[in-house]
């Protein structure tokens, strides 16, 4: 049981490039989430999903997109990277009472 896995661990992007952050969970949870963490700001919810085919915006969705074609996978897409998207990104899944977090992806946009 691997829990929540994220790839890559680190990435450097140039301004305007695109990339997809991968997230997979093996706990059969319906709920999944993407957060970004910036120093002194806590975690901010970007997007969430309540099941395959159903996604919705969180607090800071601008510049991001998501999809949920299966229960296990919840990728986060950055279309035109900007320096403001430099952050640490965490994926999580939930059984509706507790969220389980992945190890994070550290993204730098220069």
């Amino acid at each position, binding site marked *: 049981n691997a829990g*929540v896995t994220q790839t890559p661990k680190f990435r450097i992007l140039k301004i305007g490039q695109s990339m997809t952050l991968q997230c997979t969970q093996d706990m059969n949870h319906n*709920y999944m*989430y993407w957060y970004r963490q910036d120093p*002194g*700001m*806590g*975690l*901010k*919810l970007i997007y*969430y999903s*309540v099941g395959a085919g159903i996604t919705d915006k*969180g607090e800071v969705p601008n510049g991001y997109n998501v999809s949920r074609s299966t229960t296990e996978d919840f990728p986060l897409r950055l279309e035109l990277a900007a320096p403001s998207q430099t952050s640490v990104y*965490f994926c*999580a899944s*939930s*059984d*509706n*009472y*507790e*969220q*389980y*977090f*992945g*190890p*994070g992806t550290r993204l730098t946009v220069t």
Partner: protein
Amino acid sequence: AQSVTQLDSQVPVFEEAPVELRCNYSSSVSVYLFWYVQYPNQGLQLLLKYLSGSTLVKGINGFEAEFNKSQTSFHLRKPSVHISDTAEYFCAVRIDGGTSYGKLTFGQGTILTVHP
């Protein structure tokens, strides 16, 4: 909407001393409360949670927290800290209700540094 305020951004303490990390929340409906810990360069790990019942909640690594509804607080305590407790701690809240979809609102975090 709910919000969470962690009253201290940094807490330095000596090894074997007691510590309290403070968390206040705001919500117009009943809530569930959580404390997560993040060790350097790692993801978040659940320390403890309050869902219902006893207001004193015990978690992993000797931590406990007390839910105080009248003061809308959920402070985290440990009677004797260890060097290995050095980490960032996050308080989080979610609405007690079906339409919350398990979403959490996090505080800004408190960095606990334990000195020898």
